[in-house]
C-alpha cells in the first residue's frame, strides 16, 4: 500500500491507469452483482427515457437500462482487448522469433509477408474477414488478431537479432546447446520485456479497434451489450444522447487507463527502448 502511494508521487499517470483499469476489471468481473437491473430486460413502455430516477443513464429504444448495459458491456470489451493482445503477442513473437533466429532467406520471406499484412488497411481487412466469416465475437477477435500480430513479429525479430549477436549466445552454442534450447532458455527471457511493453501499450488500441468493428456491425450478436454497438444504436437519435454518450465514455476511460499503464510500464521496464514504441 505504501509502495502504491509512493507510485502516486513518482508516476501519477501509472497510478491513475492502475486505478481506472482496476475499477473496470472489478466492474466486469462482478457485472452481474453490480448492475442494478437486468441488462437484457426490455420494457417498451419506458423506452428512450432520459437519465434520472430508476435509470441513472436512461433507457434505450427497447426500454433497457443503459447503466446496467454499460456495466455488462465492460466484460466483453476487456475480454476482447486481452484476448487479442495475448494471442497476437504469442503468435507474433513466435513468428518473429523464428524469423530472427533463422535469418537469411527464411527471415526475408517471413518478414516480407508480415509487412504485407501491415500494409493492408487494417479496418478494411478486418471488416472483410468479418463479412466473409459472419459476425460473431470469435470471428471478430480472429480478424483483430490477424491484423495485430505483425507488429509483435517485427519487435520480436529485432530483439532476437540483437541478442543473437551477443557473446553469451555464442558461448552457449560453443558448449553445444541445441538451437531450440538456446531459443527457449536464452533468447525468450531476454525478449519478453520488449513484447510486454508493446502489449500493454496495445491493449487500449485493441479495445478501440474492437469497438469500432462492432460499431460497424461486426461484433457480438445482439442482445448482448457491447459498447461499440450501443453507440451505433444510439447515434440514430441525437435527442436520446444518453444511449451513445455513456458507452462512449466507457471506451474512452478504459482506453485511457490502459494507455496510462502502458506508458508507465514502458518507463519502468526500459526507458531506453522508448523510441521503438512511439
Amino acid at each position, binding site marked *: 500500500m505504501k509502495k502504491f502511494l509512493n507510485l502516486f508521487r513518482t508516476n501519477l499517470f501509472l497510478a491513475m491507469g492502475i486505478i481506472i483499469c482496476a475499477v473496470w476489471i472489478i466492474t466486469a468481473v462482478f457485472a452481474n452483482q453490480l448492475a442494478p437491473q437486468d441488462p437484457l430486460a426490455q420494457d417498451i413502455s419506458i423506452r428512450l427515457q432520459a437519465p434520472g430516477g430508476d435509470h441513472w443513464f436512461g433507457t434505450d429504444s427497447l426500454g433497457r437500462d443503459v447503466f446496467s448495459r454499460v456495466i455488462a458491456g465492460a466484460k466483453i470489451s476487456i475480454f476482447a482487448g486481452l484476448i487479442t493482445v495475448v494471442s497476437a503477442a504469442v503468435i507474433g513473437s513466435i513468428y518473429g522469433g523464428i524469423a530472427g533466429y533463422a535469418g537469411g532467406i527464411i527471415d526475408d520471406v517471413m518478414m516480407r509477408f508480415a509487412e504485407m499484412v501491415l500494409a493492408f488497411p487494417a479496418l478494411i481487412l478486418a471488416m472483410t474477414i468479418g463479412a466473409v466469416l459472419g459476425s460473431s465475437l470469435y470471428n471478430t477477435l480472429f480478424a483483430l488478431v490477424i491484423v495485430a500480430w505483425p507488429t509483435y513479429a517485427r519487435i520480436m525479430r529485432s530483439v532476437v537479432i540483437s541478442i543473437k549477436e551477443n557473446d553469451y549466445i555464442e558461448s552457449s552454442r560453443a558448449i553445444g546447446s541445441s538451437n531450440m534450447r538456446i531459443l527457449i532458455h536464452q533468447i525468450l527471457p531476454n525478449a519478453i520485456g520488449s513484447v510486454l511493453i508493446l502489449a500493454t501499450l496495445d491493449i487500449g488500441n485493441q479495445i478501440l479497434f474492437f469497438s469500432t468493428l462492432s460499431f460497424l456491425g461486426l461484433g457480438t450478436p445482439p442482445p448482448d451489450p457491447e459498447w461499440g454497438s450501443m453507440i451505433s444504436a444510439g447515434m440514430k437519435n*441525437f*435527442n436520446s444522447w444518453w444511449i451513445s454518450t455513456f458507452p462512449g465514455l466507457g471506451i474512452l476511460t478504459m482506453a485511457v487507463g490502459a494507455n496510462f499503464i502502458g506508458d508507465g510500464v514502458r518507463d519502468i521496464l526500459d526507458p531506453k527502448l522508448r523510441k521503438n514504441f512511439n
Partner: protein
Amino acid sequence: MKKKGLLLTCVLLVLSIASISAKGDAEPASEQAAMNAPLVIAIEPDYFTFDPGYAYELYAPMVIGVVYDNLFEFTSGAAAPMPQLAESYTVSDDGLVYTFKLRKDAAFVSGNSVTATDVKFSFDRAINLKSNASALLDGVVSIDVIDDNTVSITLGKADSAFISKTTSTAYAVLDSAVVIEHGGVSDASAAQTDSAQNYLDHQSAGSGPYTLKSFTADDKLVMVRNENYWGDLPAFETIIIQDMPDENAQLLAVKAGDIDIAFNLSSDQLSQLDSIEGVQIISSTTMTMGFIMMHSDPEIGMQVSDPYVQKAIRYAVNYKELQTLIGAGTITPESFIQVGFIGSKDPIDPASQTDLTKAKDMLSKSAYPDGFSIDFRVCDLAPEGIPLTLIAEKIKSDLEKIDISINIVQETWGGGFGDAYRNRTVGFTAMYWGPDYNDPNTQLAFLPGQYVGLRAGWTADMNPALAAMYDTIVAETDNNVRTGFIEDVVTETGEDSPFIVYAQYPKYIAASSMLKGVEYSNLYRLDLAEISK
C-alpha cells in the same frame, strides 16, 4: 525567443483557418439563394444506377420516374395505372396480346419523337440485359412494331397485372438512337455487349420532365428541367438529391433550412420537429412488410416446423409493442397482402392478436410443450431504417415468455445469409419484403410452391388448393373477380402459414412548409415533378 515565435505562428495559423471557415458557411448561402433555388432533397441512398435496364433499388424509381416515361404510370393517390405514353390499348381475347397506341406529341430530350421502335428497343434491351430489372419482364415473349405509333406485346401467359407492371422502371421507354450511340444493345447478346449503362448513369435519354445532369455515387445527383417536355413543365428548374446516409444529419439539415426535404426520418425523431416552424411532416404507410419465417421442413426449421409451434409464436409476438418500436403509423396486416392493395383487408387489432394464454396452449399441444431453444438467423438489413436485428431482439424477449429461447445469429446479407435464404436453408428468421411492382400479384410469391413460399419450405402439395390460387389469380383479368380471389387468400393464410407478417412499415418525410405537393406515393417515391413552392 525563437520558441515563442514558432508558438505564435502556429496559433495564428490555426486561428486564421478557424476564422476563415467560421465565416465560410454563412456567405455563400445568402449569395446564391436569391437565384432560382434548386429543390434539395436529402436521402439515404440505395441506388447506384439509373439505367432502367438495371435499376432495381427501391429509391431509383423516384429519379427514373421523372426522367423517363412509361406506357402507363401511377400518379400519386391513384388506385389504377393511368396512360402516360400510351393513348389507348386493346387486349386480345385470350389476354396474351396487348396492342398500345402511342401518343404522337411525346418527344425525347434529344428532340426525337417517341416511337414504337423506341418501345421495342427499350423492352428488348431490358429483357436481354438479364439483370434484376429483367425479372419484371418475365413472361413477355415478343414486342412487335406495327407502325410508328403502334406497338404490340405478346405474353406467354395471361397476366392480370401486366398493365401495372408496365408502370415500373424496367418498362421505361428510352431514346433508342441516343442509347445505341452510347453502346446500347437490345439483342440477345446485350448482357455481355451492352455498354450504355455508364452513359445512362450520368446523363439520360428519356422523355420525362427532368433530365439527369450528373450523378456521383456517395455524393449527390443533379437533375435539370427538360425545357422541351411534352407535358406541363414542373415548377423547379433544378433538383439536387444529396446523399445523407445519417438520419440525424437529415433532421438537422432540414431544421437549419439547408435542405428542403428530408426523406428518411425515424419515428423517434419527429418530436424534435414539433416546435420547429416552417417544417411540415408527411407520414404515410409504405408497402414494406416485415415477416417472421418459420421453415416447414423439420430438417431445416426443426422445432418451428411444428404447426402448433408456429401458431404459438403467432400468438406470442407482441404486435402492439412492435408497432411502438417501429413508429407511429405502423400497421399489422392480416397476411402477406399489404393493406392498400386490392383484395387486402383492414389491418388487424394488434393488441387482441397477442394472447399468451392461447400461445402457451398451442405450445402444449406441440411436440415441445416445455419450450425449446433455437437459432434465429438475422441479416444486417434495415427496412425503412429499422434494423432487423432490433426486431429480432424484441421477438426474442416476446418468445421468452412462452419458454422459447432464441439465440440470435447475426449474418451479412452478402456474406452467407442471402445464399442460405435463396437456397431455402434458413430455418427461422425475420426478413422484409417490398413489392416489385404496384400490384398484389407480386405478393403471390408467398403462396405455397412459389419462390418465397418455398423458402419457408411451403411446397404446393402441402396445400394444393391454395397453391392453385396462384395461376387462377394471375390469369384472371376481371379485376372484381380477382379482388375476391385475393381476399380468399388473405383469409386462408391469416392464421395458417409459415409466415407471420409482424408489421407494415410507416414512412416519415419532413419538408419545408413552403413546398406544395410533397406527397409520398407507391412504390417508394415522391412525385418530384408535382412539387412546387
